[in-house]
């Protein structure tokens, strides 16, 4: 067979057919900086027109590529310039029309999510940031496809603890406002330390100001393929485990690279990056937790889990980086609890705790993700959870994030059911001692010493 043999062809087909190998998302980043206008209605009109025109062919192109290569492309998404920057020029206190405009554009395009209802406040708030952040709970409950994120910390700037305090409060508010849909609003909102400008994954995607007018970023997904590959090296040493993961990550990423290039060509939009993250889904056989268990852990969350995840994350990067000219985004294993069958099981059985998840986020991307906690958790405790996670990101010079869901009206042992890619989340316990006085201090936690590299 020309260049490629039958065994390799069959391997690829099995990865797609049986092991859930797919392209998680083709995300088009679009700059909205040129849509700013004093008149908010005019700004919204410009935003709608720009998005729907630039991404007009995104969905058909995604489908055509999926068809051509026989590879499922699960989501087509758009990320935009943080709206707090775009809306800043408009004379209005009401930012909800901006959220509705994004949602309307998403519906016109037929995409799955639109990200960028965002603000970056590492060091302080502009008036526009304040307005946008205050509007997030309502914006996410009155729209279907809009995702929102707030960057509250970077290694260079330190942690904006005023923002951290406010994040706890708005997450609580969001949970209450969307309690009829299992607090779904919180699943569309993420708080970041060291956010990246070219992330194709939601809820945290936005189009950074360092990016061009538009760009194509691609995220792949293949935990099932890695798990299956590791089944072939049961009992062998960690050298064999790392090597197997690397080889597999290489193959997965090459496919992502091919799709990114093809999409870029078809849409005439520059190719940005391939994100190497292993993104799980709730489907059986598509779990990051099960990869860790395949390495020899009885249940994800037991002692040894952090080491296993560190190995996995590093090997995925080493394999992936060789496979693609441009790697970026978050690029690491994701550990969203509700979106991973193995994590759900581990959390529901008590093997996986919030503390262990926090430790795991030290060695992987991205953070405390899709974790349900009791609905009566005080806002200050949520802020403290965020502060801990931000500190991990800031000190380790990596991206960390918190996407946490106080389950309105529910307690430990209950569960939230979102369905689809978001899956289901068992409500996990939090520590009961208060951090209120700590959170109430406000101000900034200074940037760490190793940020002074100049």
């Amino acid at each position, binding site marked *: *067979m*020309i*260049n*490629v043999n*039958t065994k*390799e*062809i*069959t*391997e*690829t*087909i099995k990865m797609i*057919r049986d092991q859930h190998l797919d392209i998680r998302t083709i995300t088009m980043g679009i700059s909205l900086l040129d849509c700013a206008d004093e008149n908010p209605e005019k700004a919204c009109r410009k935003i709608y027109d720009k998005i729907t025109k630039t991404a007009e062919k995104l969905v058909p192109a995604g489908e*055509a590529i999926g*068809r*051509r*290569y*026989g*590879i499922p492309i699960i989501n087509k998404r758009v990320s935009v310039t943080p709206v707090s920057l775009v809306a800043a020029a408009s004379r209005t206190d009401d930012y909800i029309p901006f959220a509705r405009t994004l949602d309307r554009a998403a519906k016109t395009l037929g995409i799955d999510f639109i990200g960028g209802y965002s603000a970056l406040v590492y060091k302080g708030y502009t008036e526009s940031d304040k307005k946008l952040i205050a509007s997030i709970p309502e914006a996410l409950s009155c729209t279907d496809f809009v995702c929102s994120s707030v960057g509250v910390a970077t290694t260079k700037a330190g942690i904006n603890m005023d923002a951290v305090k406010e994040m706890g409060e708005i997450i609580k508010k969001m949970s209450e406002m969307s309690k009829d849909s299992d607090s779904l609003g919180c699943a569309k909102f993420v708080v970041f330390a060291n956010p990246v400008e070219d992330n194709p994954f939601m809820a945290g995607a936005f189009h950074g100001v360092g990016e061009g007018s538009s760009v194509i970023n691609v995220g792949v997904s293949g935990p099932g393929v890695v798990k299956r590959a590791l089944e072939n090296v049961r009992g062998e040493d960690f050298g064999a485990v790392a090597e197997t993961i690397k080889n597999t990550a290489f*193959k997965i990423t*090459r*496919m992502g*690279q*091919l799709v990114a290039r093809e999409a870029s060509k078809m849409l005439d939009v520059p190719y940005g990056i391939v994100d190497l993250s292993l993104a799980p889904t709730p489907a059986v056989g598509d779990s990051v937790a099960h990869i860790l268990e395949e390495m020899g852990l009885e249940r994800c969350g037991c002692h040894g889990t952090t080491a296993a995840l560190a190995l996995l994350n590093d090997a995925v990067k080493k394999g992936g980086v060789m496979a693609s000219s441009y790697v970026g985004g978050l690029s690491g294993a994701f550990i969203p609890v509700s979106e991973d069958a193995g994590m759900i099981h581990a959390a529901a059985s008590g093997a996986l705790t919030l503390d262990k998840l926090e430790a795991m986020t030290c060695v992987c991307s991205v953070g405390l993700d899709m974790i349900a906690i009791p609905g009566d958790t005080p806002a200050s405790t949520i802020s403290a959870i965020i502060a801990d996670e931000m500190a991990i990101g800031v000190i380790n010079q990596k991206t960390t994030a918190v996407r946490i869901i106080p389950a309105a009206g529910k307690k430990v042992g209950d569960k939230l059911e979102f369905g689809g890619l978001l899956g289901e989340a068992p409500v996990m316990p939090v520590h009961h001692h208060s951090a209120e006085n700590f959170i109430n201090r406000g101000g900034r936690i200074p940037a760490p010493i190793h940020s002074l590299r100049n």
Partner: protein
Amino acid sequence: MNAVLSVMGIDKKGIIAKVSGFLFEHDINILDINQTIVKNIFTMVMMVDLGGSDLEFSVLADKLNKMGDELGVEIRIQHEDIFKSMHRI
């Protein structure tokens, strides 16, 4: 443009005849072919040249899928680049 056509499923009479007949009808040239049967599971992988074909890729894929349903096997057609990119540097 070259594509990989793969057929997998329970073995039965006439799979190759049906598939190759269909390809002939649509001016699709078979460049290479490899077929095995392991434990009654039929696997055939063909490299085909779509240069002369009168069908759009997506129409061709639909027709092949349908033929697969009729034959009780799975028929896929994929651009060769996915295999090249995954397995060759």
